[in-house]
């Protein structure tokens, strides 16, 4: 990192600690999808490892693929084609795929 970047991170740290928290929260809320936040970073990594790229935009811990809202980019068809049970949720899918990988 160059000095400009180190300075930027320091400014950011100061801003997050001492800045107007209401305004900061507004910025965070606008940028991230609150209603359908998608998987966490750990789940992303697990998803990558399990090969489930297509569920990144849709997966939540407790929602079955078949229950996902229509306005979310689901690509459920791919799962149907692959023969997966659409009542499974994200975590179950990962486990299933990992099991497949281990069996192979």
């Amino acid at each position, binding site marked *: *990192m*160059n000095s*400009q*970047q180190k*300075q*930027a*991170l320091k*400014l*950011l*740290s*100061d*801003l*997050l600690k001492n*800045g*107007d928290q209401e*305004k*900061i*929260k507004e*910025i*965070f*809320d*606008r*940028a*991230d*999808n*609150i*209603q359908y*936040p*998608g998987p*966490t*970073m750990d789940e*992303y990594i697990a998803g*990558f490892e399990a*090969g489930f*790229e297509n569920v990144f*935009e849709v997966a939540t811990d407790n929602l079955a693929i078949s229950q996902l809202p229509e*306005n979310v*980019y689901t690509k459920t068809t791919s799962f149907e084609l692959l023969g997966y049970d659409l009542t499974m949720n994200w975590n179950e899918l990962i486990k299933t795929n990992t099991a497949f990988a281990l069996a192979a």
Partner: protein
Amino acid sequence: MQTVGHHVCLKTGGRAKVLDESPFLAEYIPNNLEEENKYQFLGSGYYYWDDNLNYAKTWGKNHCRGDFFIVESDLNLAKGLFLDLVGNRGDIRFFYNLMKDLSSHVRKDARTIAGVIDIARGLEVLAPGTFSYKVIRSLDYTQFEKTDKSEDKKAVRYVENKFNITLLNPRFIICLLEKSDVILLSKTIVYESK
């Protein structure tokens, strides 16, 4: 440094209008209350494929119903304005740290590249200097391409007795966060879909 960018856009308005008004803004609105959410990989901006006319054609076919122009531009990726998430390890480390810092604040949800860029741009307004970049470049890659055997995508091994690989036809995305004559040096329509 300089590169050539390929911007794909609809033919709406015809050649002269497109040449005059391009590049066109692609908006990132993940919480769109009025219509469908809009997602862009590097947030709102003006998008190019880095020196990749072939992939620009493929992208146009898939996203513009086959009715598109490709505008080629010389791009000046000027030091200080350019965040290079492809070829500058310092820039990548900076972005990683930024992402980590943002993720630990407020909620743990600054976890996409687009989300982090959008938040950082918002914070730049509150505290100038936190994210003052005007152009970003990154690698576009999917898990499935690891095993893709097609000639233009397959990975190449460095030596015969190791599995280490590299890509000789990677896709780099360039996003101009704003239109700037310092960055955008020229415009020519180099392809029109039939």
